[in-house]
């Protein structure tokens, strides 16, 4: 059995297996650390910074940090909450996020985080960048207006032979997700479902489904993102 280490989050004593990532360790202790680019079972990359915490006084990402003995973590301070809120607001200002017409609305992790952090309006001006959509694939619809470049689809989706379906194309502010059209043309329904599922926003949408769940029954209609972690405590 792995060695158990003790550490603290906001002064609360926690225990976890040594080598666990802090977001997962916090979850087992009933503490929610918000994440966006992170996915259980996929190696973390720490790119969105929404899970920023202070560890022993230093700002770092909780998804890429492994717990160690005596670690002192600050998760809920005003400074950190505002930093996270600013990151969420930046993502809204940087893309074209038309929630009222988005199929993912109500199930969207970015939107859910904005609800949780009570974002009434981003503090940054909207950029209205020019972004493309791609509808040629038989099963998947890609709307790059909504992409937050979290790379979850790139990291998590491979076909049965381990080949990746998604990759980054271009560089700098023109960077975007591109689909391997040949591979994606023949994917199974299950893999297509999974690809749409790993997307935290509505950038990858399963075709022919649309607004499947009525308003009121969607994932984040009733309770905030992270509430399940906090209630399990």
């Amino acid at each position, binding site marked *: 059995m792995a060695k158990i280490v003790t550490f603290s989050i906001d002064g609360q004593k926690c225990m976890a297996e040594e080598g666990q990532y802090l977001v997962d360790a916090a979850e087992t202790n009933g503490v929610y650390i918000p994440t966006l680019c992170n996915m259980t079972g996929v190696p973390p990359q720490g790119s969105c910074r929404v899970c920023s915490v202070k560890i022993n006084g230093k700002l770092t990402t909780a998804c890429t940090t492994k717990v160690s003995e005596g670690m002192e973590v600050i998760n809920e301070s005003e400074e950190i909450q505002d930093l996270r809120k600013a990151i969420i607001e930046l993502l809204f200002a940087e893309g074209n996020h038309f929630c*009222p017409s988005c199929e993912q609305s109500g199930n969207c992790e970015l939107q859910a985080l904005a609800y949780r952090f009570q974002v009434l309006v981003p503090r940054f001006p909207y950029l*209205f960048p020019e972004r493309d959509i791609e509808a040629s694939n038989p099963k998947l619809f890609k709307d790059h207006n909504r992409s937050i470049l979290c790379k979850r689809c790139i990291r998590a989706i491979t076909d049965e032979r381990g080949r990746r379906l998604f990759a980054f194309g271009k560089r700098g502010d023109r960077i975007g997700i591109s689909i391997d059209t040949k591979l994606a043309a023949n994917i199974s329904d299950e893999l297509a479902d999974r690809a749409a599922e790993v997307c935290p926003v509505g950038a990858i949408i399963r075709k022919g489904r649309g607004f499947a769940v009525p308003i009121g029954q969607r994932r984040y209609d009733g309770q905030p993102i992270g509430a399940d972690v906090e209630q399990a405590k």
Partner: protein
Amino acid sequence: MDKKIVATTSLAGCFGCHMSVLDIDERILDLIELVEFNKSPIDDIKTFTKHCDIGIVEGGCATSENVHVLKEFRKNCSTLIALGECAIMGGLPALRNNIPITECLEEAYLNGLTTKDNNPDRILPNDEEIPMMLDRVYPIRELVKVDFFLPGCPPTADLIWNALTALILGKEMDLPYEVIRYD
């Protein structure tokens, strides 16, 4: 307590936000005890007849007339509220923000399915009575200072009610989880 004076308008909006104001149901009877409406589609007063305490703006700015009305609101209202996604970020009209205005007009009046056979002289609206369309749809805070933002499409009736009562009674706004919605 003197009644607060409220003005409302819909710029490039669909009046959904105004419908949501009415969606406060019987609380509208309480509201009418607290406020008096001035320029608003609710009472059909067309021009400001006095200075208002609260101006509520639905919709973004898509035309020159929208800009004119918005500036009037800023001039005549002590507190300005952006109500709904369109006022806050342009909303669905802003979907055209990356399409050249010529293309938009040609699609609407020359090449669209319902217009291409019905506009033989290929006329684009050009009467000087018609407001000019802007190059893109502007969130209202890009043109005037906005004091408060209430998101939603439309904003929930409870969000509007909580905001108005907090503002009128000078207390902190109640923001439970269910009231903030972007759709």
